[in-house]
């Protein structure tokens, strides 16, 4: 393997486990080597970037400025983190358990959910999933709050199967209605975010869900879902789709990832509380993905489109822009125009992917952002280079493996102006892929 190929592979790993990858980051990872860089993603060491961006203290009320502070904080955190994987992973779970502040309205509850995803997102999926079922923002979002035996709400029951654990086709409508009963009895204090269970409002059962009969509650319902053979396949496929490639997961990769995550099987017993508890190891799953031959080989290379948050945060990181409170207004407008404002997914299905980010509408916002970023950013890497080597310098700065002859020719028209050059490179087709 040539050194260029090694650099390209390291850059690929950094893009998928973070938000873009600039030249100096690639240099450092290249020096450390692939295996050691993967290890570093999972090492729990103090991160000065995280320490410098503590979570905001938000008023326990509906408050527009708290909404803005929340978005500003996460963008700042994603930009500052030295090891971006915990943030990238949190962003992945935000899309998986997609919850919008637009309906939840209480910013502190969204922050709490975000912190839960950050804390639990690299551990045991069972714990994360179970916690999400009584997460305050999720309860408001999917109407679980106040769902009682007399008036069960099916929203959370449906999505917990369809979007969070199993996928379409692995449950029936009767399972949704029965599962809704299992999830009844939970109430929420919106200001403290405390979820409390009242036996009085909980349906006593027995329910029959996915062929098992018992008096289910939120815990045994979790165990039941995660014991379905469809569940590990679903979790693995979601990881591949968002972090690997838009193309179908290769069979060997699926086998490897299932083995790492923990394949399961339903037990032969009939009791609700007696399903097999296989491991659901998200850390092992992610590590297996990043070291799988399909991920490191050609299958996954450039096989995704940068999502708007990846695009914007990647540019902020490469250009060393620490967004101020004032910049947040600009960034919010840009991300809204691009179609992906954190904490505001379009619906519980999360955000789209692939070429749907590449619309003429979004391009207008990208042009505005590129203009702004090239003015606000540190362009010294490019400006200090001789005009003859500036195209290489901007490719290095933004972590682009190689510009095509088309793009090189276009960029060569503006090498005299570093802001124009950087702005244009941010709009190049090569920079849009991930």
């Amino acid at each position, binding site marked *: 393997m040539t050194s260029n190929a090694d650099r390209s592979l390291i850059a690929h790993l950094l893009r998928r486990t973070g938000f873009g990858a600039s030249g100096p980051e690639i240099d450092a990872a290249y020096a450390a080597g692939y295996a050691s860089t993967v290890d570093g993603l999972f090492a729990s060491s103090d991160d000065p970037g995280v320490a410098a961006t503590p979570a905001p203290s938000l008023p326990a009320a509906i408050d527009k400025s708290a909404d803005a502070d929340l978005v500003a904080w996460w963008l700042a955190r994603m930009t500052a983190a030295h090891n971006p994987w915990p943030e990238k992973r949190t962003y992945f779970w935000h899309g998986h358990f997609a919850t919008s502040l*637009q309906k939840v309205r209480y910013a502190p509850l969204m922050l709490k959910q975000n912190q839960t995803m950050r804390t639990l997102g690299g551990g045991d999926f069972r714990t994360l999933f179970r916690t999400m079922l009584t997460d305050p923002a999720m309860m408001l979002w999917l109407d679980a709050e106040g769902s009682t035996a007399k008036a069960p709400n099916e929203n959370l029951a449906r999505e917990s199967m369809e979007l969070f654990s199993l996928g379409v086709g692995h449950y029936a409508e009767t399972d949704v209605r029965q599962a809704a009963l299992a999830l009844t009895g939970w109430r929420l204090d919106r200001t403290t975010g405390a979820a409390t269970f009242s036996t009085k409002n909980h349906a006593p059962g027995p329910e029959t869900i996915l062929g098992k009969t018992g008096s289910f509650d939120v815990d045994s319902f979790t165990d039941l879902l995660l014991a379905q053979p469809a569940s590990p396949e679903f979790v693995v496929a979601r990881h591949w789709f968002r972090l690997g490639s838009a193309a179908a997961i290769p069979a060997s990769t699926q086998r490897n990832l299932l083995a790492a995550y923990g394949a399961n099987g339903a037990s032969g017993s009939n009791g609700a509380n007696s399903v097999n508890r296989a491991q659901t190891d998200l850390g092992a799953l992610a590590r297996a993905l990043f070291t799988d031959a399909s991920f490191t080989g050609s299958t996954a*290379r450039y096989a995704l*489109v940068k999502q708007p948050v990846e695009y914007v945060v990647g540019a902020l990181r490469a250009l060393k822009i620490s967004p101020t409170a004032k910049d947040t207004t600009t960034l919010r407008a840009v991300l809204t125009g691009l179609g992906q404002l954190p904490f505001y997914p379009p619906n519980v*299905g999360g955000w789209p992917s692939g070429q749907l980010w590449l*619309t*003429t509408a979004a391009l*207008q916002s990208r042009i505005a952002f590129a203009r702004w970023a090239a003015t606000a950013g540190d362009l010294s890497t490019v400006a200090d280079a001789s005009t003859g080597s500036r195209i290489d310098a901007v490719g290095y700065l933004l972590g682009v493996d190689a510009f095509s002859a*088309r793009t090189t020719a*276009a960029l060569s028209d503006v090498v005299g102006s570093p802001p124009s050059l950087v702005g244009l490179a941010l709009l190049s087709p090569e920079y849009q892929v991930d």
Partner: protein
Amino acid sequence: MDTVTRRKFLLASGVVGAGALAAGAGALTWSDLHHAAQSAPLQPGQGILVLLTLYGGNDGLNTVIPAADPVYQSGRPGLAYSESEVLDLGDGLGLNPAMQGMHQLWQDRKLAIVRGVGYPSPNHSHFVSMDIWQTASPSDPQNSGWLGRWLDAQPDDDLRALRAVSLGGTLPPLLAGTETAGSSLPLGQFRLPKGESGTALRALGDPSSQDCPYAAYSARDTGDLFTVAAAFEPVLPAQKGSDKGGALAQQLDIVASCIESSVPTQVYAVSLGGFDTHSAEKGTQSTLLGELSSAVSGFQQRISAGKRAGDVVLVAYTEFGRRVAANANEGTDHGTAGPVFVLGDSVAGGFVGEQPSLTDLDQGDLKFSTDFRSVYATVLADVLRADPGRALGGSFPLLPLR
């Protein structure tokens, strides 16, 4: 007259690929450039849909008002309009007094009112219900909008970026497909880079054999933006107008100019917001309905006077109506079914569907009588001449709207 080279024109319009560029010769005038889209104008008779989204949940009962119904009067004493105030529509119903322009369209038989439009298991969240209306999917969250899926079924040719456009702001989900998406027009001029940067950006839209598939898609999207800008810039105002004339009127003005200039666009999305009237509803809603009525009737007048009068249909909808009873703040809370307006010279004016009962309620909410997807199916079939099943994922009864 200034001239530009064919190469510049082709790059500007993005309408041909590199092969044609290499073979290109001759010169085109600015006028040609400005009318790039007219190389493939809509054929006479090809339908044009203008979809107007009213954000916030417009109170249908104070829009198409059952003033003669005592339950209406007693349910919202401080909010109700009397029989003598409303603009008579027959059937015991009348339009809000602020809607004189649309009342005239009703009298001219150019306005159809579909009553009681909604969907099963109504959702009371603005956001979720609007998502349902825009994706046409009440039970399953979808990443694509109903007109986006219509776009997916259109030819993937040089005009793809021009077929459906939204006016101002962010692209609404209704125009996002699974393969492609509509374009969005600024209310002033496009803000594309000028000079060398502009030329260079344009060049980034050229195809390259070195592109991976997504980079190639990005390049073609860049080319598409220049196509859109070249096609629409001549009809966009020099700068964003003031809101004094009404933001909706401004959007519809641009739409009318586009239609008159024969750009090959079949779908326009426009919007008006502010209908979330939980308190002091009467004044707020009356102002908004006045703006709606005068903007829409002004638009229709202009269209009626032009060549495409028989082709253009405007549809106005909102994410839900409001509850029958007023709340304690002289406002109304989130409800369910409401009226949808359909207007145009070719529209069969009058009522469609049944007015929901004010006494046979579902937990205080009106029961819908017409599924909103029937309105969409009718528009897809009758205006866009498309197969409604493909965009809606099912079959819905067509309504007698044209």
